[in-house]
């Protein structure tokens, strides 16, 4: 995309930048594996992940620590440390970006994809004024002059609802509250009008009332900009009302993926169910006994043979411990994938045994 066109998008941030019709999915991730060599051995952090994301849509990725959800996002964005090894292909707007050089990725950052990090206390540079942290990418990527960049930064601070932007633009991060800092981080991420935003646990470090504000803000900005979002979280509550589709990860793999309503109403993978049951809910009466998941999170260096969840799964059988179940589509609901040999509700009608895997998220191939 030319500089001029990019700039135009910035000046009218509410203009949706639709892709060319029929151009295929925005993001196409195919068989991605990422591993790290450590002193104890090779950690398979992401172990074969495939999915697609359409323009303007939100994919929620849910998992516990060690599920590989954050490593996956960093793999896609090319932000891995040099100790990492990666396989598989990532296509962005049809273009293979899996083997880009550092410089190639730099051209994507900001204008094509950007990221909101977990902890706003550590993700802003403590020694630079927040204005500088926003204008920096505007000037670098969009070639704005100082005045233009400042005006855009003010507009961005206003868009993320920071009161008195003209005053705040001169502030240092430590002068702002956690919620305000996360708004600044979002402003930085949105500055150059990305088509895809990774939000990696964007509210985990925040209080519940601030969390709600930030999630509202992300949803609003996403709608206005027709931006796709990958919302990574450990909290099913965060994605339940806000994602179009949810992928549940366990031990580096997607174990279930479905449109949000379907995932909650027709859960197939026992891990997803266990995760839902283990969360205390305000809707339950006090002292409700929680259905805890027994056992421990998997060891990623020596993962269990077969299904990684099988040692903790109440329904596991011989086959589960012998071979890993593929991620396959439900015959009941199109677009619902799960990796389980003995899925929940298999006795319900219109279901068959798993078919050959062909994970798509509804995009025409």
């Amino acid at each position, binding site marked *: 995309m030319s500089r001029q066109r990019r700039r135009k998008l910035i000046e009218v941030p509410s203009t949706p930048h639709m892709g060319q019709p029929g151009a295929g999915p925005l993001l196409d991730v195919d068989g991605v594996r990422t591993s790290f060599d450590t002193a104890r051995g090779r950690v398979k952090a992401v172990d074969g992940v495939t999915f697609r994301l359409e323009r303007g849509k939100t994919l929620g990725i849910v998992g516990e620590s060690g599920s590989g959800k954050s490593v996956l996002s960093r793999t896609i964005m090319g932000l891995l440390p040099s100790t990492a090894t990666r396989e598989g292909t990532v296509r962005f707007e049809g273009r293979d970006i899996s083997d880009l050089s550092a410089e190639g990725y730099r051209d994507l950052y900001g204008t094509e994809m950007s990221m909101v990090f977990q902890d706003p206390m550590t993700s802003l*540079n*403590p020694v*630079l004024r927040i204005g500088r942290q926003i204008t920096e990418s505007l000037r670098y990527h969009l070639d704005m002059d100082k005045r233009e960049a400042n005006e855009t930064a003010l507009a961005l601070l206003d868009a993320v609802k920071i009161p008195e932007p003209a005053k705040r633009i001169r502030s240092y991060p430590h002068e702002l509250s956690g919620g305000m800092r996360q708004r600044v981080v979002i402003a930085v991420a949105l500055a150059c009008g990305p088509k895809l935003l990774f939000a990696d646990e964007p509210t985990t470090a925040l209080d519940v009332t601030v969390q709600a504000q930030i999630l509202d803000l992300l949803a609003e900005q996403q709608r206005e900009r027709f931006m796709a979002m990958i919302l990574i979280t450990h909290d099913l509550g965060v994605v339940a009302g806000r994602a179009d589709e949810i992928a549940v990860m366990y031990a580096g793999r997607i174990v279930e993926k479905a449109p949000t309503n379907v995932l909650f109403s027709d859960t197939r993978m026992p891990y997803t169910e266990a995760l839902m049951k283990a969360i205390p809910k305000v809707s339950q009466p006090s002292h409700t006994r929680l259905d805890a998941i027994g056992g421990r999170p998997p060891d990623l260096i020596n993962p269990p043979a077969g299904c990684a969840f099988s040692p903790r799964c109440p329904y596991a059988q011989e086959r589960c411990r012998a071979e890993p179940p593929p991620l396959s589509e439900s015959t009941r609901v199109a677009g619902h994938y799960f990796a389980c040999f003995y899925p929940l509700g298999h006795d319900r009608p219109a279901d068959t045994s798993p078919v050959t895997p062909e994970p798509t998220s509804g995009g025409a191939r």
Partner: protein
Amino acid sequence: MSWRYVGRRLVQLVVVLLIVTFFSFMLINLLPGDPVDNLCTGVCDQEQEAQIREELNLDEGVVQRYFDWLGGILTGDFGRYYDSGVQVSQVLESALPVSLQLVIYTQIVALVIAIPMGVLTAYRAGTVFDRSSNATAFGFLALPNYVLAFYLISIFALGLAWFPPGGYVYLSDNPIEHFKSMFLPVMALAAGQVAVYMRLLRSDMIQTLQEDYITMAKAKGMPPRRVLFRHALRPSSLTLLTVAGLNVGTLIGGAVIIEVLFELPGMGTQIFLTINNNEYVALQSYIAIIGVAYVLINFSIDFTYSLVDPRIRHG
């Protein structure tokens, strides 16, 4: 930075100086030798000796002499040399600038080399470049500066004759000769400091590069050079700043061997001479000056902290 803070630091300065000067005065009196011996060179009788002692106030108690000296300092009188009667302040006027030049040039050279090296070795930590730089740095660190000075003199002054082997030229007299005369001593002093600074910056920088805001700067698409120097350098430089600042204090009058070797008439040379000649008053005054410099430098380091890192504010 409030005036209260400045006031508090000034009080601290006075207290520190009183303690430093008092104890150094006591210690100097424990030095072997007696200034009267130097003046008489063995030919005085007891009466003459007593007379000299009285003239120089050496007949008074050590505490009384300390307060006499302190009273003089407060009125701007640094005392006189026993031997020549020359005003200490006159010598100071010529020696202090030489030492300051030596120190400042050394720090500039050391930092100009160490900062990019520290940043790059941190960025390329674990690579051949990093390891060979570190090995070289340790080599210079292990080499005492006077040994390095001998090598420098024999190669660049005596062998190649690019630089004078010693002596001092005033900057105002002949800038080119001035820098040529300072080049070798500065190099001898800077080599070890480069190693220290580079290592300090490298380890702080490696830590900073793990920070989320660095990943964020990369995710903004900033090129490595900008990430390193704009985003990572300042938050990593506090330790470096502290040590470099303290080194300024140490080197004023602390580079005795180098000053003597290169025949630079600085504070180090003067201190060397005053110790040799039991010039208590002059030595005491030099120590006080260095003490003031030390405390002032510390004070300004604290001040620069808040410039480097806005989170540090003095209240």
